[in-house]
């Protein structure tokens, strides 16, 4: 994620951009977001989002 995009989203959410903690957060976000790329490796064709299962379909 580009730094500008990061700062824009952070500002919109209401984080304090002057907080020195923002640099640490940016570095952490850069480590976590690549996990989204891993999801893109999967073929999700025809799949809907997971829902906690209703009780009628879960009997062992």
């Amino acid at each position, binding site marked *: 994620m580009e730094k500008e995009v990061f700062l824009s989203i952070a500002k919109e959410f209401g984080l304090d951009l002057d*907080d020195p903690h923002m640099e640490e957060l940016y570095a952490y976000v850069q480590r976590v977001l690549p996990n989204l790329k891993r*999801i893109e490796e999967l073929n999700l064709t025809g799949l809907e989002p997971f829902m906690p*299962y209703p009780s009628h379909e879960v009997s*062992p």
Partner: protein
Amino acid sequence: MDSKEICELSISELSRLIQKKEASPLEIVEAYISRVNSLEPQLNSFITLVSDQAIESAKQAEKEIQAGRYLGPLHGIPFGLKDLYYVKGIRNTSGTKIFDGFIPDYDSTITLRLKKAGGILLGKLNMHPLAYGATGENEEYGHMHNPWNTALIAGGSSGGNGSAVASGQCPFAMGSDTGGSIRIPSALCGIVGFKPTYGRLSRYGMTPLAWSQDHPGPMTRTVEDCAMVMNAVAGYDPNDPTSTNLPPPDYTQALKGEIKGLRLGVVKEFFEVPIESDVSDSFWKAIDQLAELGGIISEISWPLYHYGTAIASLIQMAEATAYHRELIRKNGPQIYPPVRLRLETGIFISASDYIQTQRARTLFYHQSLNIFKNLDILVTPTVPVTAFPIGTTSLLVSNQKVNVISLLTQYTRPFNLNGFPAITVPCGFSKDQLPIGLQFVGRPFDEETVLRAAHAYEQATPWHLRRPPL
């Protein structure tokens, strides 16, 4: 019987003593309070103790039992609750001083059911702040300490539960598990920890971390005790939208003592990730033992296992951020820094990313079900390492430097993602005399087979009988 001996008994043993009137609830509660008072300076397992209230409840239980109004096997038995289970009139901190003054005006469903079963609350247990961490470190209320070596972590997030139950400060405690938070401290402290199927136990009246992965569950010293607690707390709850209306079985009836013919699977991908040699040695010895007991062992492949952490952690982050968004805005600098980082990172996961990840979870769930077409139980190590010093952020395991959170959750998190029932039981000790856990996982809502397998293994081995040197 002296008070330390009382505190070493299981729920079933205490219950028998109460029924035979060989020990009174008051005697038992006083023994536990004395044990807590002597160990708390070393272990820091509790955030709030309610000793006076516990003594009053014990006197009441004694009167009821003497009058012939015996409520069942938990009547007069003390217990602890992780400090995120609401109890009417008692503060609920969720492990952070930000909520030090929050006093719920109602009981969680599980609190209520334990009270109705005659259980006696001793106190609220220490936890990783907001349940968002696996080590049991808490700078605000003090770190939780492992009773086997107090310089080491108890594990988390239900770390107070792990140290309290293992050290005999309470015979059982209710924890919560979003990525392993019941099973990790149970394994590191050498006790039994059970995460039933998602939907089996009500989440109503508990501080959420990630709604779709949060699981309540018991932490005990034996599998039989675990089944007894499950009997008291399981069942449909209209206040929890994901509560199942499948009637719960009598879990104690599942403990048949044998597993002959049970099909047990070992996931080969679980040994492609870092694991300490003491843990893998104990695991394979346990597999040999299960085979001797008549289990049919096979190796299986679960290719999507390697995606589990990515899927689960993204969903957890997005949901935790959604729940705590006002807290992040108003109290950001007061939140424990590692937890604050995780919570704020969720801001950067978009709605479409979240939904895409939930679609990946559907794929993961389907593959999980397929694995069980030819299996009854998966057997895995619970945690790939034993407890390590408080303050550690990474470890060198299998020649790889690994972040401790990823390491601690690598075998537990997949079963929060698919919601399948999973239990840990002690399966050995390291060269440093630290406990090691073995995990049994079953099909959704087949907790009976999970308990049956875990119980048969436990009864054939001596590990659950060892006590920490305190």
